[in-house]
């Protein structure tokens, strides 16, 4: 199998693991919220895990690829939840 395909599979596995952990620790309130947060966290895990790994100066081992993807996915789940709640509570200021 191609090395890039293996790297993507490892990252996808880590992202899904991070998403499951996030689901256990902070379950969503509704089904639509579950769908949006799952997609967002898995995509963030796939896209930004390398950046997170480099930022934290973790070595280039497969364990660290999984860990960084899971961490990114977990954090993005929490950030997405916090952002949607802040946006839902925000009311536009009464203008003139």
């Amino acid at each position, binding site marked *: 199998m191609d090395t890039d395909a293996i790297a993507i599979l490892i990252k996808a596995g880590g992202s899904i693991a991070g998403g*499951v952990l996030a*689901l256990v*620790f902070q*379950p969503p*309130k*509704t*089904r639509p919220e579950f769908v949006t947060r799952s997609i967002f966290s898995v995509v963030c895990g796939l896209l930004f895990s390398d950046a997170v790994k480099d930022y934290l100066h*973790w070595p280039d081992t497969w364990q*660290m690829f999984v860990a960084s993807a899971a961490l990114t996915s977990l954090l993005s789940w929490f950030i997405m939840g916090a952002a949607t709640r802040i946006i839902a509570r925000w009311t536009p200021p009464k203008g003139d």
Partner: protein
Amino acid sequence: MNIWNLSLLIGAVIAAGLSYRNPRALIWILGAALDYTVSVVYWRTGLPYAEAVAGMCDATLCLCLYFGARERWELVIYRLFQVSLAVNIFFLAGNLGIIPMVSQDTYASILELLNWLALLLIGGVGVAQWVGAPSVAAHRSAGRLGRAVRSLRSPRKTRPFHQVG
């Protein structure tokens, strides 16, 4: 099987005996026992990343509790296994060198304590049901204990997300 495993097994049998009228309590005792057995057997085989396997078992049990819980005491057990999962994640992170490593004894002690707390809670709910929760709650001397029992036996407030929206 060492002394800790044996004492936990005896505790599980006692908790199951105390809550024989409550099939849901028996299901969660069985779930916790399966979680513990798979984790310990995997760890004894000496294969790598035993904490990850223990964490997966905890996560599975947590999801079962979240989706299947009907009363508040079941959600308290869910919280206990969330803590157990967090302990496993921290220990795994320590093994990978991400955070400072804690000793194996500390890790095992915390997990044992959480298992005992879960068994005590299930057994306590079984005793309350055996005595009769309303009679405990109504008894003047029961006071705070009676209110706690009534609160634990009340239905959960928030429904799981798959039933909402």
